[in-house]
């Protein structure tokens, strides 16, 4: 491009360097705090000889983690699979619901208050009920809990994004004599994308949390939840903590995947006129 708006490459490179430098600089303080916390934790446990059922030392948790890596990975895969299936189902339903709400006022008045009511309910309380209602020896009840839990943030955010259109864009499309479908396609959907991804980001973390908690309510012995409870029952506290670390890692993976998906989608949203 040949415009004055483009900075020269050298300056652009320098600013990129500065930015990545400052990003790294921004990451330093929390890393330092984390290391210091781990160090103090290790020292406290060893110096005061704290019992492992109160708090195992980070070094013991690390040992349990390296000894059990493949078992933790398998358990995380089970839990992650349930979380992913539930998340996808919940998201699909939420998007369909939001589209109906945006298009039909009657549906809006019916569903939106209901979704608000569901949003105030801690959905994992339904885990034992789903276990009885559906086959408790399958992964179905857990996936349903995740589905209901993730439906809410995706639905609420996407519906808000789809319903909101700036008055000037509405008038503009009206001056083009554009159909409702054209407005949906060219204004509402691209405008709702950031809202949709806010919902997905919330739902991604929620999916792992609800999948693990659903596992605590009996049924199959697969997944991180049963491994944590059985390790605690066997007084193997360091092992229990190592599965907790696995759950944290799984949650992070889901959250980062959601962020990545958002970045890719926002880039492909850009419509070029070339």
């Amino acid at each position, binding site marked *: 491009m040949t415009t004055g708006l483009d900075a020269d490459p050298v300056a652009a490179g320098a600013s990129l360097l500065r930015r990545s430098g400052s990003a790294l600089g921004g990451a330093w303080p929390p890393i330092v705090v984390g290391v210091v916390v781990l160090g103090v934790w290790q020292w406290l446990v060893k110096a005061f000889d704290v019992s492992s059922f109160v708090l195992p030392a980070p070094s013991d948790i690390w040992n349990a983690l390296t000894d059990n890596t493949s078992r933790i990975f398998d358990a995380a895969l089970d839990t992650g699979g349930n979380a992913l299936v539930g998340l996808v189902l919940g998201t699909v339903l939420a998007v369909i619901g939001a589209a109906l709400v945006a298009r039909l006022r009657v549906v809006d008045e019916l569903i939106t208050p209901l979704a608000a009511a569901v949003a105030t309910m801690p959905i994992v309380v339904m885990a034992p009920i789903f276990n009885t209602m559906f086959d408790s020896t399958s992964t179905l009840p857990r996936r349903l809990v995740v589905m209901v839990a993730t439906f809410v943030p995706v639905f609420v955010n996407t519906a808000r994004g789809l319903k909101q259109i700036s008055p000037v864009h509405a008038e503009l499309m009206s*001056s083009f004599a554009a159909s409702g479908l054209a407005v949906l396609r060219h204004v509402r959907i691209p405008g709702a994308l950031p809202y949709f991804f806010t919902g997905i980001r919330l739902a991604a973390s929620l999916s792992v949390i609800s999948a693990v908690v659903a596992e605590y309510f009996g049924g199959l012995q697969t997944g991180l939840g049963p491994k944590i409870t059985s390790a605690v029952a066997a007084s193997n506290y360091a092992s229990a903590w190592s599965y907790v670390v696995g759950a944290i890692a799984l949650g992070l993976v889901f959250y980062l995947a959601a962020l990545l998906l958002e970045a890719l989608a926002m880039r492909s949203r850009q*419509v070029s006129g070339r």
Partner: protein
Amino acid sequence: MSIDSAVGITGVDKVFSARKGDVIALTGIHLEVAKGEFVSLIGPSGCGKSTLLRVIAGLIPATSGQVTVNGKSAEQARRDQDYGFAFQQAGLLEWRSVAANVELPLVVHGVSRAKRRARARELLDLVGLADFAEHRPQELSGGMQQRVAIARALAESPTLLLMDEPFGALDEMTRERMQGELVRIAAETSAAVVFVTHSISEAVFLSQRVVVMSPRPGRIADVVPIGLGARDLDTREAPEFFAAVTQVREALRGRASVGEGIS
């Protein structure tokens, strides 16, 4: 009513029904805009000038009376894209490039990709933004964004351009440059223009006729013809320009202007 008028308005009233009773936004409007003519609507807030523009556009229906655009009903003209509309806010879609924004009406109306691109290039040339086709709207200044919006309004080669204070948010210098550009664009496209503004000098500089409106209820108080000839850099300093400005100002104050202003 002449058959070759761009806009014909006869006996239009517009009443908005509100809970506390009806509000008369427009009453007894008669106005004819010839093909290729530049007409400004000026008046204080609440005089119904923006409402009148939207009635012409078929965006809101008149309560009574008749509106024709190129001899058709306003609604039909809107569906046929006989006019282009430019709003006070540029209203560009941030996820579309500048060129893709200009193409938007063509996309909505199913014009082929090749034709759209060619047309967008032509229009960006016309408004002097050919180098910015691939930029994002938010990278452009307010004046540049408004030029994109004007290019977009011209996409369907309308015979009528409806503009609602398109330069209202711009600084004085940008505004004067944009006015010069608009005079040129209107001449090149030979489109009729109905231009809503708060600014007396803007109305005088741009228009062949200035329609002075007054509020409560919104009505046409006076129509001032402006005989300035071709506009150039000296226009704003000519004594005739100041005379016309004075004439419009007095019409706005409600004084009878000196003879020739009354239609």
